[in-house]
């Protein structure tokens, strides 16, 4: 290895601006720098926001996604991995074609710190990234009752390895075993999701595996089924699911596979062959790092999704604090309002005063049937919040099961393609 040094990059800085060709020109301050929008998180909200920023803003903006994973596994449809109808590979998305199609910079790293004064992020890979607008779309974090091993007690509420772990545990069950899941206190990601999972697993054990003596126990921290109550109550009854509302987990033991919970003021402990604890939830860590939280979530202005605590920082998807549900479909929806608002702001155009968002979800209730739930949200100028303007549910059917894949297909494509 040679030891003689050429000019180091430090020496180089002394020479900047010394020589020029046709004219001496300032090479540092540059008013014409294209605004840089950094989107943290490449899930349903983040990927949609970056795509629409470029689709609508084109070369007037430079967009970078910072996302830890090179492959995103959709939580949407991931309950179908548990009954073997999908694999996590079927639900995986990469960013290669997507990023070249829309000229989006991809950085696979995580944010270590946010310097709001200098508008820059320090990443785990050591790089510093400056931003003009910062969009945080980081999803959720868990509030566990105590420290336990999630490879033994999987939540499977972020899809991928966790989903496959839970599937392997379910597949190892024999007739007579018990599957127990806990449903977190609202708000949490994907309101119908846990109820849907209980149905899919009960159906799988009973009808696919043919186990007539397996038990499915649902401990719900909420006082009742919080969405599609009629649908899920009837489906639970048909499978013989042991549903216990107002049960709050207080401790989980990964060695004994037990969950301790309070029910009616009494502490009880339940042991289960498979224990699927879905912990209570809060905004992802970067929201707290950036200091844009109030309590567990990040309050925003629904006209733009800009933080009410820090201008120039926007929060979309599960981490934001509006009453809109936390889920991929509406995260995609919020992302478009946010992207348009950022482009309006950069262009000096007033924000659109009455944005609409929508939510839709098809929930499998067996290997052949699915229900649905949908809603439209409108901005209420008096309360400055998003309020429901239409809300309906559809009962489980085989035709809805088929339509579920049309819904997810276009949603996936609108987000990642």
């Amino acid at each position, binding site marked *: 290895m040679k030891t003689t040094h050429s000019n180091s*990059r430090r020496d180089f800085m002394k020479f900047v601006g010394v020589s020029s060709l*046709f004219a001496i020109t300032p090479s540092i301050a540059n008013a014409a*720098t294209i605004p840089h929008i950094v989107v943290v998180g490449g899930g349903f909200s983040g990927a949609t926001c970056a795509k629409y920023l470029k689709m609508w803003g084109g070369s007037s903006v430079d967009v970078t996604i910072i996302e830890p994973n090179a492959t995103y596994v959709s939580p949407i449809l991931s309950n179908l991995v548990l009954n073997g109808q999908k694999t996590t590979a079927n639900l995986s998305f990469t960013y290669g074609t997507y990023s070249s199609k829309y000229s989006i910079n991809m950085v696979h790293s995580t944010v270590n710190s946010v310097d709001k004064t200098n508008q820059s992020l320090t990443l785990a890979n050591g790089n510093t990234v400056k931003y003009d607008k910062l969009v945080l779309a980081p999803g959720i974090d868990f509030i566990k009752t105590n420290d336990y091993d999630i490879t033994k007690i999987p939540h499977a509420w972020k899809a991928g390895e966790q989903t496959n772990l839970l599937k392997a545990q379910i597949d190892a069950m024999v007739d007579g075993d018990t599957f127990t899941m806990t449903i977190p206190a609202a708000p949490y990601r994907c309101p119908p999701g846990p109820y849907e999972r209980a149905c899919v697993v009960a159906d799988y054990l009973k009808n696919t595996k043919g186990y007539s003596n397996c038990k499915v126990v649902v401990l719900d921290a909420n006082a009742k089924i919080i969405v599609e109550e009629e649908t899920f109550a009837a489906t639970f009854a048909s499978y013989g699911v042991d549903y216990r509302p107002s049960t709050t987990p207080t401790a989980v033991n990964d060695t004994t596979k037990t969950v301790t919970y309070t029910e009616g003021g009494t502490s009880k402990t339940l042991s289960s062959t498979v224990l699927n604890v879905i912990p209570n939830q809060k905004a992802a860590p970067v929201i707290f790092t950036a200091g844009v939280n109030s309590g567990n979530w990040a309050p925003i202005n629904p006209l733009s999704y800009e933080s009410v605590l820090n201008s120039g920082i926007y929060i979309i998807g599960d981490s934001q604090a509006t009453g809109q549900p936390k889920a991929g479909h509406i995260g995609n929806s919020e992302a*478009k309002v946010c992207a348009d608002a950022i482009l309006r702001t950069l262009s000096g155009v007033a924000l659109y005063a009455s944005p*609409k968002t929508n939510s*839709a979800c098809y929930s499998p209730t067996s290997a052949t049937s699915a229900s649905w739930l949908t809603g439209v949200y409108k901005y209420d100028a008096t309360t400055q919040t998003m309020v429901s303007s239409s809300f309906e549910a559809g009962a489980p059917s085989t035709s809805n099961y088929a339509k579920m894949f049309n819904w997810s297909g276009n949603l996936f494509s*609108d987000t990642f393609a």
Partner: protein
Amino acid sequence: MKVHNKLFLTGYSLTLCFALVGCGGGATSTAASDDSTPPVSKTTYSVSGTVPGTLIEAFCKNGSYYSVNSTDDGSTNHPFTLELPKEVDCKFIMTTNEKDVDTSKHIVTPLLFNNGTTTSSYFQLSDDLDIGHVPLPMSGEGIQAPLTVSNSKVQVNSFSYDPLDTDNDGIPNVYEDDDNDGVVNKYDEDDDNDGILDTEDSDYANDSDGDGIENSYDQDDDNDSLNDSDDDDDDNDNIKDTDDDDYDSSNTTTTTTVVLPITYKADAGRLLGSQCAQCHGTNGISVNEWDSIAGEGDLANEIFEDDEPIMSAQAHGYTSEEITLIGNWLKTL
């Protein structure tokens, strides 16, 4: 990896589109008017100039790489021409004394471009460009101060985040000397001096050429001037991709690109209508049997007559004014 398809089809359909547009459109084109050949949409343009004896390298923001040596024509001003992709942001690094086997003796000069309003290392071509003579330094060693090329015709884009220069010090990542051993990363076979050759080092597995753009997003993983879609050996390990189990198979096919706008124009109908895309596809083009709604001519009736209960549940969430705005936008698609 090289895949022989699509390219020709794309080229054909582009030409066809152009011809059709030409029939309906006004006389906007003046070029080649005395020629019956239909105008061909160019995908590359050339940049030319003169330099002292020089290696000219272009590093582009999509990871692609192009290089050429100037031609020794006996004069002191050696001409060069380099073809670069259309409308892709690229930067120039020019190296004199480039033939010295001791790479630390190379004289490496980054260029800056100034078009009167913007100065940046990045320029892009939408026509051929002649940058004239570039008086590169012929003495010194290593990285030099940047030279500024002023040319009012060139499109110059300045970015606060530069994936090819992640510490933003004006020196591209490949010309950094990460381990301070006097050999820049480009010529250093062990960039981090950990005793493991870069080609075997897991630290560099995701970015074979060390340009700062991961292989999955790099149009030219090994900076050998062959884009991966045309390259039989993407990671330049002398094992053909078809026999190689460790190259990155992204970017192996030419992907459809979308035409992105130059500027943003606010459009309430588009904002509201984009909320249909979750179920009906981006810009109203469904990817499955659910209805495409691009070009829908009678949204106001269609939206309520739909026999899907989930559609009518959505429809009732919108005012007639909003439906009119959305319908007007859909007609433009």
